[in-house]
């Protein structure tokens, strides 16, 4: 779960407009299973809020649950074994996560979530796009990119896991 929190630092150094805050959740889903992934996702969301002090992120825990369930089921189908299957899995996850996050973004916070999404929202809004549409559009575009990269990274991590370590995770054997 610490992975979710620290990857942001690398992303910031690379100046990429994504969060990749779900890599840890997806990874745990593939390594251990859905229940552990939900726990990791929720705990990291709470820790993220506590450590960064940005409590407006808390309700996005719901998104982490959706991510955990989805990732665990596509992992069972072997989606993270190859890059060719990780990409569509990531696009699917992006759609799903975006669809979950947009209403939260809008109803709970009126569109302010911080980071890239907010900037995109503000630009769209300045162009005269109605707020709900702007929030949904910004959130969806970012999510597609974000979750696709996340899934490919998880595939890369699983490929380079040392055998000794991999043997400790029964979910991988499936």
């Amino acid at each position, binding site marked *: 779960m610490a992975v979710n929190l620290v990857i942001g630092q690398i992303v910031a150094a690379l100046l990429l407009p994504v969060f990749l805050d779900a890599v840890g959740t997806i990874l745990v889903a593939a390594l251990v299973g859905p229940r552990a992934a939900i726990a990791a996702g929720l705990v990291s969301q709470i820790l993220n809020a506590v450590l960064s002090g940005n409590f407006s992120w808390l309700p996005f825990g719901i998104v982490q649950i959706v991510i955990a369930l989805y990732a665990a089921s596509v992992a069972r189908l072997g989606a993270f074994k190859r890059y060719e299957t990780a990409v569509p899995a990531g696009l699917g996850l992006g759609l799903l996560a975006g669809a979950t996050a947009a209403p939260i973004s809008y109803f709970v916070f009126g569109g302010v979530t911080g980071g890239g999404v907010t900037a995109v929202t503000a630009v769209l809004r300045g162009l005269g796009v109605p707020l709900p549409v702007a929030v949904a559009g910004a959130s969806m575009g970012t999510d597609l990119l974000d979750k696709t990269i996340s899934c490919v990274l998880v595939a890369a991590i699983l490929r*380079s896991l*040392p*055998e000794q370590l991999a043997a400790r995770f029964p979910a991988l054997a499936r």
Partner: protein
Amino acid sequence: MTFGVRLERVRAGYGQGDVLHDVSLDVAAGESLALLGANGAGKTTLARLLIGLVRPSAGRVTVGDWDVSGRRPDELARRVGYVFQHADHQLFARTVRDDVAFGPRCLGLPGDGVAAALEELGLSRVAGAHPYDLPAPARKLVTLAGVLAMGAGVLVLDEPTAGFDHESRELVVAALRRRIESGVTAVVVSHDLAFVAEAAERIVVMREGAIATDRRARDMLRDEDALHALGLGPPPAAALGLRLALSGSPVRIAECVAALRGARWTAPAV
């Protein structure tokens, strides 16, 4: 290609105040220098200047004809090979061989140095193993091989032998000596004086962000008072040479052996 390294009246730090105060240092191409000094004296900071991870706030740092300011670390990597103190955090490839090949690949080098570097550090046997399945000292050797494979003209090693057994240290000494003989410039930060004795010709002692001492390694390593002031003592070969008053002021094992072979053996009176 080989390059000298020069610091001219350099100040540097991490934002709040300078860590290095007005440091000037000239290391000739092909010279080997050891940096000594207490924790926090600024050795690592000086070393990081050379790869562009710390920027001088005043003064100039040059590697050959390159001024390091205005060059990114990944550009400087063509001339400066840097081994970090906690280097094993950087390993990520599936095999030792792939990880060692990462640096050369980033620089667009042919990669023929990879097998040689593995061989030199005794890693050929484990080249196909996963780096994380190796014990910590072996992982550190992998990171060293990764830098040797990049074939830089300047090597900067921060505590390269910390936690090493005798055999691993010998491998590092041999590899480093081979580079130095072929003209590579070496800057090593180390408290391991047995290693320093074998690898360095010159010793610079840092204290509170400034250069306190700059001497021939042979003189410094036989100066018990100066070493005691740093909480250190002469390395074994130098200590033996001093106790037995051997000729030729040996500080390396091989020199000590040669001096003992040449010395007339007089049995101590019982």
